């Protein structure tokens, strides 16, 4: 119980602080991917392959920036790679009778495998310093711990800025209207003269670009290097968070922050000396340690989902074309 005292005597407050800090540090990939997926799903198509896009973006971003020495070049490369994978997904889905879920899963497996194959020369044993600049949000505090926890990366700030932009664009612009109408009722949109596949191609490509950028964040800002198995499940979780966020960009931000922050519960509890919870059942004693705490983000997400859903009502906000494809 001495560890937290040495950290500047924040006491138990260090747990929520660590959660906020963690949320600001790790939520950007979730945010980028779920924003991208929101765009894609609003057009009536699901890209389950964003996990592969994320990992390819991470690999490409790191490879390009370590070759060129420029973080910006890496970020751009990650976006381009993501966009290309998005185009590939849209192209495959445009063939008749091809299921977008199947294409997504294939592209996920392909992307993750290709990234680990092509990325092998870039695995560096030593830790590389983060290449993307940090911004301090904790300038108001004299406390070292508070300041250290409130460092955020520029890419996260950009991601947060994208949220209102995308929300506004979907709601108030002509492009947003076309996108939504294709996602709500493809036949009507076709009758109005819009190309369904064309709109979905653009939406999937944009989603891929965003997911690629999220990948660049992983290697350039968060982990400071490329390795295999870098973020297993991050992209998939982010896609699932879109359902959780009910296809609203602003909710995506909250979902990403919540999920990122909940991931800090286990290490934070450990840092204040709470390693396990003992539950006495009389005949036996359960000792719940770190791994049970690690389940919290997933159980929390599931719990909120159960709490906010209804057995009799259709989910609010779901693009109608997704219901028609009987995806949900």
């Amino acid at each position, binding site marked *: 119980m001495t560890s937290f005292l040495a950290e500047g005597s924040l006491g138990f407050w260090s747990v929520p602080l660590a959660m906020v800090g963690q949320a600001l540090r790790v939520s950007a990939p979730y945010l980028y991917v779920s924003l991208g997926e929101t765009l894609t799903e609003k057009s009536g198509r699901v890209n389950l392959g964003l996990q*592969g896009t994320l990992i390819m973006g991470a690999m490409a971003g790191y490879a390009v920036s370590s070759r060129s020495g420029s973080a910006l070049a890496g970020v751009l490369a990650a976006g381009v790679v993501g966009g290309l994978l998005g185009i590939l997904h849209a192209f*495959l889905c445009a*063939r*008749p*009778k*091809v*299921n977008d*879920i*199947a*294409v997504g*899963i*294939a*592209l*996920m*497996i*392909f*992307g*993750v*495998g*290709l990234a*680990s*194959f092509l990325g*092998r020369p870039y695995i560096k044993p030593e830790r590389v310093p983060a290449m993307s600049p940090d911004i301090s949000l904790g300038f108001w505090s004299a406390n070292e711990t508070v300041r250290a926890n409130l460092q955020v990366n520029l890419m996260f700030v950009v991601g947060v800025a994208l949220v209102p932009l995308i929300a506004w664009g979907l709601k108030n612009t002509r492009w947003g209207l076309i996108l939504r109408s294709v996602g709500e009722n493809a036949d009507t949109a076709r009758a109005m003269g819009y190309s369904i596949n064309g709109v979905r191609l653009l939406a999937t490509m944009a989603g891929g670009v965003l997911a690629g950028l999220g990948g660049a964040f992983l290697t350039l800002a968060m982990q400071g290097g490329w390795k*295999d*198995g870098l973020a*297993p*499940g991050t992209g*998939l*979780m982010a896609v*699932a968070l879109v*359902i*959780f966020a009910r296809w609203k960009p602003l909710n995506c931000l909250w979902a990403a922050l919540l999920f990122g922050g909940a991931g800090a519960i286990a290490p934070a509890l450990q840092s204040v000396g709470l390693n396990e919870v003992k539950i006495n059942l009389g005949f036996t004693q359960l*000792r*719940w*340690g*770190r*791994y*049970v705490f*690690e*389940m919290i983000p*997933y*159980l929390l*997400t*599931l719990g909120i*989902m*159960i709490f906010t*859903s*209804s*057995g*009799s*009502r*259709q*989910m609010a906000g779901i693009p109608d074309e997704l219901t028609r494809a*009987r*995806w*949900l």
Partner: protein
Amino acid sequence: MSAIAPPAMPNRTPGRLRTAIMSIVGSLGSAAICVAITVALLATLPATNQETERPYSYGEKVHLVLKTTYDRVIRPRSPAARAGYRNWILTLQSATPILLTGLAVAAAFRANVLNIGTQGQYVLGAIAAAAIGIYIPAARWLLIPLLLAGAMAAGALFAGIAATLERWRNVPVVLSTLLLNFVALEFLRYMLQGPMRAVGEDGRPLDPQSTELAEFARLPQFFSDVPRQGLHLGFVIAVAAALVLWFILRKTTFGFRLRVVGQNPVAARFAGMNAARVSFATLALSGALAGLAGGVQIAGTTYVLYPDVGTDGLGFTGIAVALLARLSPIGVIFSAIFFGLLKTAFVALQESPLEIHSNAAQAVQGLLVIAVLIVSSPQWRRLVGHVMRRDRAAAA
């Protein structure tokens, strides 16, 4: 006397044989495309010939890839020796768990139930099988069925959580099964850190893995007496499961309902079918198959429960296997064996002078599924069908 020619039947539905042939042609075609892409990709690898100290030429690399694959995967190493078919045994051994998880996915996807939690159900099955095999003292003839039944029950119950949440609160299966994958992984780690952790003779805990299954709790194996070297009973079970699933889907009322609910829920409703109940049962069936995969893997191949079971992705690979087989249970047998072949091949290629890392196998798996999706789309099939008709006309 010239008989009146029957009128040409437009859009005649192709016969079963024809469909089968098309499916095989499609699979082979896409396999060929992927092999070509892979070989091209691999040939770009930098590698130097140790003997001549010159880089391999493009042709030499392709030759080396094909030669290694043939020598180490297809050809038995020494047909005279009893273990001569070791490559094939290895292939079938790695095909076993993905065959079962592939069946799990195929069953669920047929009913349009998006169970992407086969990994979690597989992990739960593995935990249950290990627990039964380690802690329950029973005779072999009783223990092994009990162990496999326990694995199936664990998988089905875990999938049942998702099924219940869907019926109770409309929580999408795709979301709940995904989340439960991670819960299963952490549960496995917890079990290996705590209750099931192996303890050394001095009473101190060993590495975070379980004790090894006793000999009588392991699946019997053929072709070899050395542990883990033979082909275990699990492969036979998996093939039998494929046949059973085929039978259920084709010949039973439940299978019919399952397919109707998957293909046309409106028709299912008008026919008075309870779609929710069918989805529920399908998800449980799918979970049981994935759980069985975990049980078979523990009792047949690894003999211990260790953390890698949670991250090996065999449950997830089932999705690719099922999609490659276009959700046909019989097709899953072949696509699983093909994936097993790929694995053996890439292990061999990693040891070859080209040192191709075996994680390239995953990229190839993805490519394969993509190719099958393209080739099996109606446009392609029409094209192939057109060519076949033309050939027949030319022959007549």
